[in-house]
């Protein structure tokens, strides 16, 4: 199983439509988020899905394991699931994804803001009021100056999503061009007396609430260094703070003495007194440690040869959850033979998605997909243009059709290089693809490279990657986070390591459809999702990618762990586990 790394930054700005829409409706992300009109009512309390804190379980030490550390501790710089998961108990933004189990975890709720924002000026102005009485772990009050400084810091530290998530703030363009001279004073306006924070955008962005609820928008003390803090922990606002961090040994979280629960939905009290994530054990050894109750959870996916064991002997300690993600083949539409749409369609017909599912761990850990948007995701509609016998879901490969298309393309006999990560699952799927391409008449070679560099390597057109296996995990629950990010013209930047449109797909008609869907999103999310489904169909007709499967995640916890909750946004809620 692959380590579910977050997707990287996109260098090019994601285009937004400028046309104005109705004020209140602009914020209403009706499918998943709480909807606030001009009054900005607080939806934080009394929401469904929340479980009240149970003090009898408080205390103890939660022991987590990971193969290795995940780099910098700076929440505005780090872009890995491993630490984003832990940041949920450490840092807060103005808004947060609800920390609950299940579908409700996609709901955005007020966090350091008293309520959801008031949206005015045709969706271009968001007004928040800062919650009073919240303190950092160093004892200092959280003030509006901290908020303004934190937004500025996103640019001064060159946060990975500065150019994509926050580029719409007034003044952001100049900050992106010259981070050291960043001035957001007109984009983020604060008033100390009233505690008001006003964010001005150059264009309406209905997805802004999502973007304010991820760790890169964490509120940090105004005096935080204007550079990546690295291994030095920054003061937190959540129930825990960082006690110590050594990337070679462990990250230890201890209780934040200045934390008092202000919103159970946004930032609930944690159960364990300390949470320690230790590094260095192999995944095999880590799984054994959890089985023996020497540790409580392991971040890395269990190895393939341990799945049957943990699914039988330790079944009661295993939690399997579907992810809004996909594994897919990115075919370079600008390089032969994949510059020919027939070849790309042939690959989609030929690839045995059931085989890929098997290599991932079986049908209980993954499901074949044909569409860009994963199942149960906004905009997803069952559809499969590349399955034997037709239908809306994938049933079997159609090799005869694939061979016919390749014959028509006249590309048989060409050399094709496949680039995958060198971990067990990705490499084995790569070997299968090599075998398949050989069967289709190509001279296929496999290039498994380190997971640390593969994702950026396959993005850079200078590396002339023809076909690659990769995966994409949502940043937030919106169709645009897949289609607009992975298949729009703006997401393709030749010669850059951050050209997330790996296939290099650019179709002006499809781009216009995406813009239309984005525009509709502001007023009518349901209609927008229907449009995204059409975009999905249009993109897949040209087959720049071959979606393989949507994965599930396996969490193995020790027998002493209770209160397992799975947020669809940030996965297992670490702070909510108890060991007493």
């Amino acid at each position, binding site marked *: 199983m692959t380590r579910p790394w977050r997707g990287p930054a996109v260098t090019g700005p994601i285009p937004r439509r400028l046309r104005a829409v109705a004020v209140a409706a602009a914020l209403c992300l009706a499918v998943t988020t709480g909807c606030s009109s001009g009054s900005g009512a607080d939806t934080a309390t009394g929401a469904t899905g929340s479980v009240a804190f149970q003090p009898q379980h408080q205390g103890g030490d939660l022991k987590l394991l990971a193969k290795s550390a995940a780099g910098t501790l700076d929440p505005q710089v780090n872009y890995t699931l491993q630490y984003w998961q832990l940041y949920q108990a450490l840092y807060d933004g103005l808004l947060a994804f609800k920390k609950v189990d299940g579908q409700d975890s996609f709901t955005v709720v007020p966090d350091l803001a008293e309520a959801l924002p008031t949206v005015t000026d045709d969706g271009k102005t968001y007004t928040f009021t800062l919650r009073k009485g919240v303190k950092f772990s160093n004892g200092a009050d959280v003030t509006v100056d901290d908020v303004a400084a934190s937004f500025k810091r996103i640019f001064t530290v060159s946060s990975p999503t500065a150019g994509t998530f926050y580029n719409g703030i007034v003044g952001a363009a100049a900050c992106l061009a010259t981070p050291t001279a960043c001035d957001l004073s007109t984009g983020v306006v604060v008033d100390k007396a009233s505690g008001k924070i006003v964010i001005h955008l150059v264009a309406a962005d209905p997805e802004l609430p999502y973007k304010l609820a991820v760790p890169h928008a964490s509120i940090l003390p105004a005096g935080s260094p204007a550079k990546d803090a690295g291994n030095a922990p920054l003061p937190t606002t959540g129930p825990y703070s960082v006690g110590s961090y050594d990337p070679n040994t462990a990250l230890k979280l201890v209780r934040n003495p200045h934390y008092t629960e202000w919103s159970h939905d946004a930032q609930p009290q944690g159960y364990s007194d300390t949470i320690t994530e230790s590094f260095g054990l192999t995944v*095999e050894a880590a799984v054994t440690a959890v089985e023996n109750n020497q540790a409580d959870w392991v971040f890395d996916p269990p*190895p*393939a*040869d*341990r*799945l*049957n*064991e*943990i*699914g*039988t*002997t330790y*079944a009661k300690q*295993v939690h*399997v959850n579907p992810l809004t993600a996909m594994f897919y083949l990115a075919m370079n539409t600008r390089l032969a033979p994949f510059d020919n749409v027939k070849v790309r369609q042939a690959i989609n017909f030929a690839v*045995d998605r*059931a*085989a890929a599912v*098997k*290599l991932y*761990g*079986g*049908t*209980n*850990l993954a499901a074949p997909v044909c569409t860009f948007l994963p199942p149960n995701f906004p905009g997803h509609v069952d559809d499969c243009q590349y399955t034997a016998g037709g239908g809306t879901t994938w049933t079997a490969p159609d090799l005869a059709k694939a061979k016919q298309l390749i014959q028509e393309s006249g590309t048989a006999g060409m050399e094709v290089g496949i680039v995958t990560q*060198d971990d*067990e699952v990705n490499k*084995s799927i790569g*070997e*299968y693809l*090599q*075998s*398949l391409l*050989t*069967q289709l008449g190509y001279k296929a*070679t*496999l*290039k*498994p490279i380190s997971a640390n560099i593969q994702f950026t390597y396959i993005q850079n057109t200078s590396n002339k990657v023809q076909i690659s296996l990769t995966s994409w995990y949502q940043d937030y629950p919106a169709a645009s986070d897949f289609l607009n990010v992975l298949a729009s013209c703006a997401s393709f930047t030749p010669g850059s390591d951050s050209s997330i449109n790996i296939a290099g797909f650019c179709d002006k008609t499809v781009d216009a459809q995406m813009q239309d869907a984005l525009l509709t999103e502001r007023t009518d999310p349901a209609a927008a999702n229907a449009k995204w489904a059409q975009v999905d169909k249009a993109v897949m007709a040209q087959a720049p990618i071959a979606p393989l499967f949507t994965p599930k995640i*396996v969490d193995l916890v020790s027998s002493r762990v209770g209160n397992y909750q799975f947020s669809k946004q940030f996965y297992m809620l670490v702070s909510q586990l108890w060991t007493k």
Partner: protein
Amino acid sequence: MDEVTVPLRSQGPWRLGLAQLRRNTGAMASLLVLVVVVLACLLAPLYASAVAHTDPFASNISGTTVVGGATVPVLAASDTGLGLGVTPIGPTWDPAHYFLGSDNQGRDVMARLLYGGRDSLLIGFAAALLCCVAATVVGVLAGYFGGVLDAVLARVLDVLWAFPVYLLAICLSVVLLTEGVTIGPVTIGAGSLWLPVLIIALVYVPYVARPLRGQVLALKEKEFVAAAVGVGASDLRIMRRDVLPNVLPTVVVFLPLMTALAMLTESALSFLSVGVQPPQASWGTIINDGLGLLYTRPAVSIAPGIAIALTAVALNIFGDGIRDALDPRARLRGTA
């Protein structure tokens, strides 16, 4: 009775060595093992096509096979507990149906083991041969001419020697594997088997060339070389007729030992994914293939591991036998 005079027939060192080798039961047993291994590997295509009816390089993830008369999937999904994971079929001990089981691609491990042996043995022997030839040229030239040439060649060998063998081999492999290499008119492609051959041969040259150079330095002082110089023989003739025949036994002793070393190095490189590239297989790549199956199907890794150990031990014992046969003084020193 008249005394019959039997003319004395001179037995050359090679003939004497061969006779000595034949009397060494350990060496002969090792040779037998090597012959069996080589023959089995040479017959790999026959086994795959006529016995196992399988393509050892093609994935067969959704395939089935027959065990005990019943058709079963080659990769079986777990149907107990939470139904997590997929397990390849284990050894059936039926040569026609996955004798040693399957790897995670649904490929016949036995067929791959035999095919992998071909590549491992080929690379091992070719690298050892290339290494010995190159080392002989370097050692003889450096030792015979001395002076600047010796100084330059000796320093080059020193530089190569300064790097740990495996580190150097891994570095070269990582660099060359992506693009291949072009030496003059010869181009070796990225996935070619000749790439590991070249790399392994290169990294071991100092280990053979340095002792040969020392031997040549000593030979240069011998009377027969001085006599050849005295009668006006050319350098080329002296090296060919007087020096080379005297260092050749040493080279022959090195050959099987270097083959074993080269084979082990190839396995290590392939295990680290920087040696033989898929879909080709070697014993090292098969061990790597089995890493993720150690808990459920250890045979995938153990089988090539045994093959490597068996072949390396046999080559070493046979190499020792050759050394004893061609250099009796070494044997005497060993028993003293």
